[in-house]
């Protein structure tokens, strides 16, 4: 077996230096639920594993005046235990709550789910709907990238050599806002999404939608932000006409694969159905 090194740096600067020097064979270890499986299966032969869980900034959740910051290496269970975050972004939390078992949720992280770059990553449509922005640290300093711009295709991201996602910023929701995430799987629990749909929206006092974001997963090489879906909702009271337009926009955006979980035709139709159901739940949550 090729030589593997392990390092657990205590600072971002040190981690970035290790990642930059480690070249293409360096891998970030956050929750390890993808990395260790790939390592074991021999699909990945890293020369260096950089465990980021000794870096405070990556392992903490903070509530600021205008936003929430979630460290990229915070596990899903910890996000779900954060009462203010759960109240503000229940859709993001329910997406994390769908990833794997209790044991997996005790390890798996938002940063890992995003950077593993699976089109079916459950947290990603919810993060995109929530307007989440990733702060990335690299050899040339920091940059902020909206979550929808991170993945380039299955297993590929825009991260450059030495770069690490440090944390995610989610805005404090405007009054009368709600979000939701739904996914379709062939069984009731612990499977990979056949389709996922995240919706966030804001309504005015009359119940008319003033802002919306719609994202769908597992129906294209990357998770899609569906601008036409948002347009279908804005200016409406989420009535049947708006939902039909949303369903049509979501289905039109799909470019899925056929596999054992679902056919192209089925995924395309379900994307529209799930987007509507998620929109209705998000709409309901604008009242609470």
């Amino acid at each position: 077996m090729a030589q593997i090194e392990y390092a657990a740096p205590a600072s971002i600067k040190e981690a970035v230096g290790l990642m930059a020097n480690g070249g293409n064979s360096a891998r970030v270890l956050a929750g390890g639920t993808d990395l260790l499986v790939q390592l074991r299966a021999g699909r990945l032969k890293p020369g260096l594993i950089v465990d980021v869980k000794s870096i405070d900034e990556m392992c903490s959740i903070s509530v600021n005046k205008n936003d929430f910051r979630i460290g990229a290496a915070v596990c899903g269970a910890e996000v779900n235990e954060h009462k203010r975050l759960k109240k503000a972004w229940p859709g993001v939390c329910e997406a994390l709550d769908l990833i794997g078992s209790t044991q997996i949720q005790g390890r798996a992280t938002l940063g890992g789910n995003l950077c593993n770059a699976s089109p079916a990553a459950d947290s990603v449509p919810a993060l995109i709907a929530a307007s989440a922005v990733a702060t990335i640290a690299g050899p040339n300093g920091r940059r902020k990238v909206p979550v929808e711009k991170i993945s380039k295709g299955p297993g590929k991201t825009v991260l450059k050599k030495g770069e690490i996602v440090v944390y995610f910023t989610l805005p404090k929701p405007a009054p009368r806002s709600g979000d939701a995430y739904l996914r379709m799987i062939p069984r009731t629990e612990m499977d990979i999404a056949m389709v996922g749909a995240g919706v966030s929206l804001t309504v005015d006092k009359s119940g008319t939608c003033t802002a919306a974001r719609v994202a769908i997963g597992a129906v294209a090489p990357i998770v899609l932000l569906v601008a036409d879906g948002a347009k279908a909702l804005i200016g409406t009271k989420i009535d049947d006409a708006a939902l039909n337009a949303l369903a049509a926009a979501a289905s039109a955006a799909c470019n899925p694969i056929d596999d054992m979980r679902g056919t192209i035709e089925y995924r395309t139709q379900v994307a529209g159905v799930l987007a509507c159901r998620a929109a209705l739940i998000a709409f309901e949550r604008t009242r609470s």
Partner: protein
Amino acid sequence: MSKHHVTSTVNGEPVEFLCEPQETLLDILRDQLDLTGSKEGCSSGDCGACSVTIDGRLVCACLVLGAEAEGRKIETIENMAEGDTLHPLQQKFLEEAALQCGFCTPGFLVAAKSLLDRNDNPTETEVRYWLAGNLCRCTGYDKIVKSVMDVAAEMRGE
């Protein structure tokens, strides 16, 4: 290949070990610390037979590197009974025949204890979802779920 010197707390006792970078916590527990109660089923985080807690959080030891245990508190099935006195969950699993071959049992017990430590009044649905990461090919789960529900009721004094 450089070995890592790791200092950790396992079942309340300070331990030190040397591990290779790719060795898992499960490898260390079983092969170096002789704590063979945690079982190796799938080695991919699917079966839960290697369930342990790290700093109180339930995880699969097969998906944790040994080196990650540095400074952490690990609890395994070996710490569940107090001396010769079985934990109520262990006792109930025996009384209600919630095991057959027994391979999955340590993982189920560790996972169930982790649930009851957080929630002493779970619904059956909550028990089933919490334990969904533990696979049993013998019992069909019903006796396991019933045992956990019964222990929870006893803990509440019902």
